[in-house]
């Protein structure tokens, strides 16, 4: 009984810590993304702290609820989107620290939890009572259905290959991070895993509604789409959720493909090891987001919604199946 109460207290404190970290770091990565994007476009860009300034400003602005809106749903959606984004982070390792809820959920749960903030956005869009937001919500639903196929293919292919290599609980984050795919796969499997990494890098901007998969918001076409009627503190919550979800998606890629730490280089000094692992995790998250968000959004223009589906189901879905097949062929030779 006391042990279980201790477990609950750990979860409560862990959630508070991870929520504060996720919100702060999420805003930080949004600032880095804006700065790097600006430099790649030969602009100076806003200061790194600009997202923090934006949130402060949004919290001071009026929170307008349109007359056509279903107000309780319209207000609840942004809060729920942010809370759901925070819970994803609880299942993912941060630096060398184990996930707060690592023993209470696996990678399949993370895949489902990733849809919850998007569903909250869809609900908020439909509750706005605006034609633009309705079209945006419809597009968000289609985008979500589109990227689920390649996302699921990546997760299942990796876990299946680990299972073939005799790893216990292959869907658990602890197994996936302690036994990186690179350590069990042969040459064919490594090519397959690289293909799956590319697929996941292209799923990330869709998951985060960033260019070229930002059709649900499409500022120049739908005037913000889902977000068109949101202002003030409601918009601030969606902005924070964007940051937290960016960290969560990057952490998924880091956990699956780049799980190594630096603590093994400083044996005997645990505190320094934890600090080094944490800093290394920050570097890895920023590097992943640079490639999967900043670089892609500078290099590409927005897809039409039908092109989004073609891209995810036909091209990236096909690449995912190719990666899975290579891992299968690799397992025939190696195990």
């Amino acid at each position, binding site marked *: *009984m006391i042990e279980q109460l201790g*477990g609950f207290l750990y*979860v409560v404190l*862990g*959630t508070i810590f991870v*929520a504060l970290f996720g*919100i702060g770091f999420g805003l930080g990565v949004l600032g880095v993304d804006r700065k790097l994007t600006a430099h790649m476009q030969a602009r100076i860009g806003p200061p790194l702290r600009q997202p923090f300034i934006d949130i402060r400003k*949004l*919290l*001071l*602005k*009026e*929170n*307008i*609820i*349109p*007359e*056509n809106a279903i107000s309780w749903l319209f207000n609840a959606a*942004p*809060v*729920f989107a*942010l*809370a759901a984004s*925070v*819970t994803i982070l609880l299942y993912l390792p941060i630096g060398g620290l184990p996930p*707060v*809820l690592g023993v*209470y*959920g*696996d990678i*399949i*749960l993370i895949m489902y939890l990733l849809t919850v903030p998007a569903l909250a956005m869809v609900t908020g869009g439909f509750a*706005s009572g*605006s*034609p*633009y937001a*309705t*079209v945006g919500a*419809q*597009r968000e639903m*289609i985008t979500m*259905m*589109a990227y689920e196929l390649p996302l699921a293919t990546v997760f299942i292919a990796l876990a299946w290959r680990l*299972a073939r290599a005799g790893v216990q*609980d292959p*869907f658990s984050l602890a197994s996936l991070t302690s036994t990186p795919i690179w350590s069990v796969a042969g040459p064919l499997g490594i090519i397959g895993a690289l293909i799956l990494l590319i697929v996941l890098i292209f799923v990330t901007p869709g998951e985060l509604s960033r260019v070229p998969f930002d059709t649900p918001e499409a500022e120049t076409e739908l005037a913000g789409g889902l977000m*068109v*009627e949101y202002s*003030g*503190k409601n918009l*601030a*919550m969606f902005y*924070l959720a964007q940051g937290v979800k960016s960290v969560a998606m990057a952490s998924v890629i880091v956990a699956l493909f780049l799980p190594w730490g630096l603590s093994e280089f400083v044996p005997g000094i645990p505190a320094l090891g934890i600090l080094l692992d944490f800093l290394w995790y920050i570097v890895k998250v920023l590097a992943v987001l640079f490639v999967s968000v900043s670089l892609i959004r500078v290099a590409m223009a927005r897809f039409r*919604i*039908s*092109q*989004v*589906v*073609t891209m995810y*189901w036909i091209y990236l879905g096909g690449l995912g199946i190719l990666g899975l097949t290579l891992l299968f062929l690799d397992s025939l030779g190696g195990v």
Partner: protein
Amino acid sequence: MPDFTLFTGSGFWNPIFWFVSIIVALILIYIIYASGEKGYKRGTEQVKPFISGNPEPAKRGVQISAGNLYWGYMDSLRVYYRNLIPLHTGIITDYLLWMFCVTAILLILVVIP
């Protein structure tokens, strides 16, 4: 106290701990949310939906029907749907034939190996 972790054979999750964590997250986020400005000017132009200055169309005119909800999806996979829709003849014996064929293929691919 029972452990509510659900095992699926390959994976696992515990809904109780997820529920506890989302309640804690909701409380924390509501504290941040509540610190924001609450007021706005009700009954003014401010609360009209933004439609780029165009006159607001009738509600029925802008509603998207369920048939159009998945337009992007249907348009992108139109070759697939063009072939699939004619197979839905509405005749029960056709559907049973399809079911037997698919079951036979699945037996060959999954069960027999």
